[in-house]
């Protein structure tokens, strides 16, 4: 659980939220996120929005927004950030990264520049090297074992 954020930060994020909410619906739709040019060029944008959207209604309301963003501030914990990164790959949120899920996410990151065969090879190798209990998929613990070491999670801090 992150500590309570100061009113200042919440106020600024509130202003930002209102600015992004073009139709004043109180929730951010995918289109409203996509109005940001920098986000339009980011291949992982759909995954990020899906993770923000905790209740799965396709839109991000203010609480989801604050929670989502603050995970990335200095106030967030290492655990939260690793969970977020895990969720990027774990598309159906079942607690495991399957071969198919990793393939799909990697595909959005490389686009048409890598052939499917080659991509599948990369996916297979990654799963094999990370999958220590041999069930063919990567669990959260196995994921942390690969990336949780050292200071990887520090690269995810957004200084709000």
């Amino acid at each position, binding site marked *: 659980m992150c500590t309570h954020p100061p009113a*200042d930060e919440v*106020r*600024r*994020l509130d202003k*930002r939220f209102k*600015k*992004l909410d073009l139709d004043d619906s109180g929730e951010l739709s995918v289109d409203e*996120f*996509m*109005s*940001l*040019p*920098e*986000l*339009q*060029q*980011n*291949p*992982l*944008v759909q*995954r*990020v929005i899906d993770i923000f959207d905790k209740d799965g209604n396709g839109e991000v309301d203010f609480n989801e927004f604050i929670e*989502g*963003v603050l995970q*990335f501030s200095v106030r967030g914990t290492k655990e939260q950030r690793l969970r*977020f*990164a895990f969720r*990027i*790959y774990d598309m159906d949120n079942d607690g495991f990264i399957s071969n198919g899920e990793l393939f799909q*996410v*990697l595909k959005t*990151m*490389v*686009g*048409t*520049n*890598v052939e499917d065969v*080659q991509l599948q*090879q*990369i996916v297979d*190798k*990654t799963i094999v*090297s*990370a999958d220590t209990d041999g069930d063919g998929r*990567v669990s959260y613990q196995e*994921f942390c074992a*690969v*990336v949780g*070491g*050292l*200071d*990887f*999670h520090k*690269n*995810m*801090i*957004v*200084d*709000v």
Partner: protein
Amino acid sequence: MEDLWVAVLWGMKIWLYLIISLIMVPAMFGFSLGISETYMTILIKTLEWATLKLQKEKADEQTLKTSASNGLIQREDGSMEKELEELRRSRPKPPVGGDFTLSDCFYFSRKGIESIVEDEVTQRFSSEELVSWNLLTRTNNDFEYISLKLTLVYGLGIFVRYCILAPLRITLACIGLTWLVIGTSAVGFLPNSSVKYWLSEWVHVMCYRICARGLSAAIRYHNRENKPKKGGICVANHTTPIDIVILCNDGCYAMVGQVHGGLMGIVQRAMVRSCPHVWFERAEMKDRHLVTKRLKDHVNDKTKLPILIFPEGTCVNNTSVMMFKKGSFEIGATIYPVAIKYDPKFGDAFWNSSKYSMVSYLLRMMTSWALVCNVWYLPAMHQQEGEDAVQFANRVKSAIAHQGGLVDLQWDGGLKRAKVKETFREQQQKKYSNMVVGDESSNSD
């Protein structure tokens, strides 16, 4: 009742005579009586006093976060390659296979969150936020009641701005515009001769000076030896249509633009009678070859005035310079870059065309404190060997951004209304793919 009418009319006559003698005549002949200077000194002193007061209060609460960019977040400025290298550095390199690791997604997620919280592009399309309040209602974002004195000064400010300055400025602006139309039409009747050109320049500059007074503009020109010469193209960063008034106060330019109807159309037609401007019909603007040809013809005629172009194509909020469209850089003429920087303390010059119409924008300008800006004339630039128009445009853009203290962005100002092209995302994907599989060629199998 009669007496009242007589008194009102008499008052208005005095008002007009005062304006003409104290403001118009000096403006016409280019000297100053020192009235605006005194006003500006008083204004600066008042704003400094207000800032000190605000800071004293805030110092107790310690909530003012000083950041150079006044932004919400700090950004990592590394490129994709650099950051992914860092992410991968501290783990053992796999014996075979592409260089992909599960932590690669960190980079994209972080960039995504950064953009969500504060992006470099959309913040340029709305007014800059001030670090400390300048006693205008419209810039009062977060500031609360501080003290009675401050509120009184603020109230006095409102009275001065709306009841004294605004009518004065509106009168001046109207006089300036009418004079422009009449003057240029009159000059247009003369046969082509050097006298006509001299008169036309004088009429243009004079009317723009009156308009500048109408906005209480305090302009400082730097490096005037680099002023644009005939047969060249002058490019500048674009914040507001008032940029034209600012630049034309110090010289005559040929304008480029679309033919409008209504009031603007009348002004345009009058102006083109006295000296050649380049006005396009709406349909003609789509034909790039036609546009280029006409501009080329104008530039090649060495007797014609330098063309004034704003390559950004749209108004941006004066904190950055956005992508320059390459059209004007393909003509092959000498480019004279000019950097314009407004001081936001005295009034926000940015025209947010989606929020305010032209008229309400002008009214806002006339009820600000003043319009203070710096204009830097940069040395002329030419297209170099082996440089294409886009590179040339970027070079000029960097020079302007550097001089004006603005952020140099690659983004297109047209993104105000349009979507990003798919190619940007494809570029990112390509770059990343290179990192993932690019190393394969060096592997043994």
